[in-house]
């Protein structure tokens, strides 16, 4: 799997390259600025890009902008964005085109290498990987939303994991539930939120996120 990496701090960049290589991913370009990133993305057309939000030269949201620009040219280009802070605003912008292949994680999620690599692979496969903190904020801002309030605590847990982009199997593993039990919960959630059920994991996540975003 070919990866383009953008991170301006040398130490962190080397660490990430090392981590990705150790898990059998091929880092085809490791760049340190926004323009370089856009260039590399368009040239290399990687299977997935791992991008820090804040990059030179402006040290604002250069990485995010470059990713969005690249996705405009190459629709559905999988991008995993890393940041020191997560904002619903950025998550919305990333998800806006509705074509999936989006990851948005806090930088410290890298500490848990297995989960991080899992997220990279999920995004590369066109799935979604949202940081639990984004989801928590999303649900908190939906606190006064009637249908969300009607969910049982278990359903809420399932909803959180689902919104993070996890498959039924992964949710079951995490919550120690059988696949059929997870299926029942998701069906209930979809019914309560008034969403059309879907078997496709990715479509499902996007529907849930769109619903929560549309408060």
């Amino acid at each position: 799997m070919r990866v383009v990496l953008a991170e301006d701090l040398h130490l962190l960049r080397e660490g990430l390259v090392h981590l990705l290589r150790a898990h059998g991913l091929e880092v085809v370009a490791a760049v340190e600025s926004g323009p370089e990133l856009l260039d590399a993305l368009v040239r290399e057309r990687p299977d997935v890009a791992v991008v820090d939000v804040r990059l030179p030269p402006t040290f604002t949201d250069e990485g995010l902008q470059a990713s969005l620009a690249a996705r405009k040219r190459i629709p559905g280009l999988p991008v995993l964005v890393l940041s020191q802070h997560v904002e619903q605003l950025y998550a919305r912008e990333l998800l806006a085109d509705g074509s999936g292949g989006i990851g948005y994680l806090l930088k410290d999620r890298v500490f848990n290498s297995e989960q991080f690599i899992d997220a990279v692979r999920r995004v590369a496969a066109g799935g979604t990987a949202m940081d639990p903190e984004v989801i928590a904020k999303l649900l908190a801002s939906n606190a006064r939303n009637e249908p969300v309030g009607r969910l049982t605590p278990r359903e809420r847990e399932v909803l959180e994991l689902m919104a993070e982009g996890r498959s039924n199997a992964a949710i079951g593993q995490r919550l120690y539930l059988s696949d059929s039990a997870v299926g029942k919960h998701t069906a209930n959630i979809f019914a309560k939120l008034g969403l059309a059920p879907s078997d496709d994991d990715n479509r499902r996540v996007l529907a849930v996120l769109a619903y929560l975003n549309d408060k």
Partner: protein
Amino acid sequence: MRLRTDVGCTYPHLLRHLRPLSRPPRLSHTGGMSERGTVPALAKGAGLFCVAVFSQVVAAVVLVGMLLSSVGMVFLFPATVRLMRRMTRLNRRLVAAWTGTPVDEPYLPEPAPPVPIAEGWYRDGRSLYKTPLIPAFNRRLNWLLKDSATWRDFGFLAADMWAGGLIAGAPLLLVVVGAVQLAGGNLIGLTWPLLAIASARWYAPWALHVYGVIARTFLGSTEKARLAQQVDRLARARTEVVDSQAAELRRIERDLHDGAQARLVAVGMTIGAAEELMESDPAAARALLAKAREASSTALQELRQLVRGIHPPVLAERGLGDAVRAVALDTAVRTHVSVDLPGKLDAPLESAAYFAVSELLTNVVRHSGASEAWIDISCQGPTLRITVRDDGHGGADPSRGTGLAGIERRLAAFDGVLALSSPPGGPTTAVIELPRALSVSPRPPVTWRTITTGICWSLCWIPLFPQGFVAMILKLVGTPEKSWFLALYMPERLQWPTIIGMIVLGAGMLATASVLTARHRNAKDAACA
């Protein structure tokens, strides 16, 4: 820098913007001229005259007080001035309410109470005192004596009846004089009231206006007093800013010391312990390392919180508009944000505005019981205006809690103000205004477009009318008059083509000018959006 709960008159210019959002503010008590009737104007004039007569009495009392002070009974002076100021305050209020001329208080700021020096004594010039009584009195005396407003006040009280009072009360006096003459059997007395009634329609409002102007000349602030007040306000704002900044730094230091720093020490120690166990007990070492990782995550979490409190990353990355949008997204109340800013603001000012908005939004969530909120950020010239409105139950009271006072302090550093309207039953509207937030963009450079537009607009009428249509009419009528119409000087066969050519040229210039102007306007609108 005061805050008013109900729509007060602290920032009248801000209230205009409250009007479409909430109940119309009660402005009638300041803008008395709204009732343009003659009878009320006459009544007010008569009232002002009566007050002027009373002022004369007060002036006499004050004069006695001052004379006594000057012959040694100096302790009477502050009380005398206090009496005088009470009277002029009443005058100012009446003038503002009845003539529609607002009159500011011109007094110099009151001196601070004396502070004891190290040994517990109070210094006043070269003398030391055991109690603050005499130094405080001296300061007050100096303050009153040196304030020119004291003497102007006295001048007003003494002269009011003979100047403004006489003008304002003339109709009343005419009626009285007429009545006295009539009572004496003199029929000429009838003419005075008739004159007063006949002229009242235009005289009464004019007299009130003149009275207002005279009163403002005597009672209003001088440039010196205005500057002194401004310096005082700035000094206070600076002290507050410096204080709050120091407190903020202390808080950050404490947070770092007790939080991230301590956790990093723990991480280091845990890794050290794991290192020692590596050989003897690899399983325990691994467990310790996992713990260290967790601790470093927590440290990061705390640092993130801290950073958010100092300067939110979205603000640094995207500016005020998107930072406010981000806050709105995280808010449990449905919040609509509209932003109309032409450019990026200065970082410190942006940060103050951001924290003010986020505090207001927190209040909406916590106290208002609102289901929806609206934030509007826009600019008017160099002034940044932010309106936060909700559909809650209102009744916000700035005297309870410290949030609103904190916002005021933050804004004061930038000469910003906060106006709050929160009648019981709602809705609540807060308007923040920050002057000089945006550097007014320099005049747009003169481009060929500007020049073309200018030439087309200013000259299109020449080919269109005199050289085109007028020449055409003259040609049709067939007068021998040629005047300055180019076409008529042409050889016969070129006359019509010239006329039509002129009309086409004029119309073309008109069309070009219109199109360029419309495009320019669209571009400007787009730039603002």
